[in-house]
């Protein structure tokens, strides 16, 4: 099992090392990696630092993101003092924006990690065992998969409750079928290959064949989609938080800040929604670009088409 963990944790680096020559021309992948690293760094430096404090450095974030400052103007447009303006509660929007990135990141990482573990475990078993178990599981997963994931996530969160953990639970549930399908398809492909037949011929027990011979060969396909799914999960987190199921106020959370800004939109106070939205876009785009780059690297057909 520990070999497994090492394999999964090391996957991105191994993939990069393997594709060192390829990555030199992977502009998309590079931009994506830089963007995502920037956001992770920002979340670590400016996020909550315990006991209601935010930020590891005194100047980042410049003001306390949850506190109303009586000396600040109310709903002031961006200026030298407040780079992204101030909101209706006399808070600094810039501080809220840079402190609010940890929630989408944490929720997206956690929920995709859970969905990946659960989904691929069921997928391995279902694909390997086959028969009625496989049929039943496939039909169930297809039924969930065909349902709009955004609506499912919203409904789940509405039942479970608001906050970080419910969001993680809902989003991971929604993505389980995705990983189940990929893993199962990969197992069916790998199962027919000669090295599996050889393992079976020397009398290796079923669980050993599955864990040692089949499962490792499905990891690439699973990891290749994860980046796209994280990008999508970030949008889902933002949407849930926009609908009011995210972090409880006054904690900074991009989606919820956009909902707050919506009330002042008719008066033309554009800065309340523009900046948090751009952050969501950039973060999701970063993961999308990484996924794009990985697909280019993994799939030689796409690479050739690009070069042609």
């Amino acid at each position, binding site marked *: 099992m520990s070999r497994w963990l090492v394999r999964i944790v090391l996957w991105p680096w191994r993939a990069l090392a393997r594709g060192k020559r390829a990555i030199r021309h992977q502009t*998309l992948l590079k931009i994506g990696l830089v963007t995502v690293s920037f956001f992770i760094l920002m979340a670590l430096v400016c996020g909550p630092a315990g006991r209601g404090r935010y930020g590891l450095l005194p100047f980042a974030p410049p003001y306390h993101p949850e506190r109303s400052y009586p000396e600040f103007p109310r709903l002031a447009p961006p200026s030298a003092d407040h780079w992204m303006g101030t909101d209706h509660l006399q808070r600094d929007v810039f501080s809220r924006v840079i402190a609010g990135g940890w929630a989408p990141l944490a929720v997206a990482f956690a929920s995709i990690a859970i969905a990946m573990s659960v989904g691929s475990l069921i997928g391995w078993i279902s694909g390997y065992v086959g028969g009625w178990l496989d049929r039943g599981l496939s039909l169930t997963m*297809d039924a969930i998969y065909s349902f709009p994931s955004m609506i499912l996530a919203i409904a789940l969160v509405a039942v479970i409750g608001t906050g970080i953990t419910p969001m993680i639970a809902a989003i991971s549930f929604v993505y389980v079928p995705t990983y189940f399908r990929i893993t199962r398809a990969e197992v069916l492909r790998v199962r027919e290959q000669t090295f599996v037949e050889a393992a079976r011929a020397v009398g290796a027990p079923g669980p050993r064949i599955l864990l040692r011979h089949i499962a490792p060969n499905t990891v690439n396909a699973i990891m290749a989609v994860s980046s796209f799914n994280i*990008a999508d999960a970030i949008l889902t987190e933002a949407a849930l938080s*926009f609908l009011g199921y995210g972090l409880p106020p006054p904690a900074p959370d991009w989606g919820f800040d956009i909902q707050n800004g919506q009330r002042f939109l008719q008066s033309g106070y554009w800065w309340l929604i523009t900046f*948090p*939205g751009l952050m969501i*876009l950039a973060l999701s785009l970063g993961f999308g670009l990484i996924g794009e780059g990985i697909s280019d690297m993994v799939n030689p057909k796409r690479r050739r088409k690009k070069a042609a």
Partner: protein
Amino acid sequence: MGLFKYILQRILLTIPMVLILLSVVFLVLRLMPGDPVLAMLGGRNVSPELIEQKRHEMGLDKPLLTQYVEYLGGIFRGDFGKSSRTGRPVLYELFHRLPATLELAIWGMFFASLFGITTGILAATRADHPVDHSVRVFHIGSFALPIFWVGLMLQVIFGVKLGWFPVAGRLGGRYLFTFERITGFYLLDAALQGDGKLVLEVAKHLVLPAVTLGLAQAGLLGRITRASMLEVLDADYVTTARSKGLAERLVVLKHALRNALIPIVTVLGLQFAILMGGAVLTETVFSWPGIAGFLVRSLDARDWFALQGTIAFIGIFIATINLVVDILYSFIDPRVRY
């Protein structure tokens, strides 16, 4: 396999799928941590007697299996429960709102095709040209768009700052009470009433939400179009058409695009589920009186049966759409039947 047999088989396959989906909805809503009764009564300081009474009223004190059978039976009889917020049957509420959602979805699909297919063709015909690269960036960016934010930004720019389009609802206030609802599709209704001004009014309300929905879907369509076109443009019959001396425009639009459309049409059909998900947020942002908006308002009001009924309805609806798409597809491309 004959066409009839294929259709029959497809329908038979849809039934267990819908049953499973309904069961999953039921189980998830019942077994998830969180008490619907407590949530409905909305607070901590509720007497246990009141909770018990409410639980009894909602039928939640019965054994799980009985509840399950009653729930499935109700759906088969077309009884999706009663909304505690509006006091009307959930099914009535949903059918009343379905045209609004469909109208939005259809026009969203239209804009998605407009942005997606045209840029896809553009990129494929100029492969590895800067045009291709910028289109590709647009397609990737489209996946990363938070749809509710796009809606709000369009509202700020085109509604508030420029004042070109209204930002909410399907009709302006002064038409609200005189508008004659015939089909529920307002654009069609306005046309049927033969009032040009009214058509314009309805169309103006449609533009921003439909573009919002379309922008978020354009990326996927665009990528499929690009890939499909690239493949077709390599085919022998395209070379033949070119060597006959046909104008490039004709080759691309008549010979290549028609054949490239097959995968595009499939994706268009399957995208409907994603579109419904996007519609929840679009309808919320634009105060659009559709199904998805109803769902969100039911959640806010803790309207338990409305939530359960709406989800079941959407599930059945999407399964039906997928079925229809598959059957239509077997007409376009006879190969899938075998």
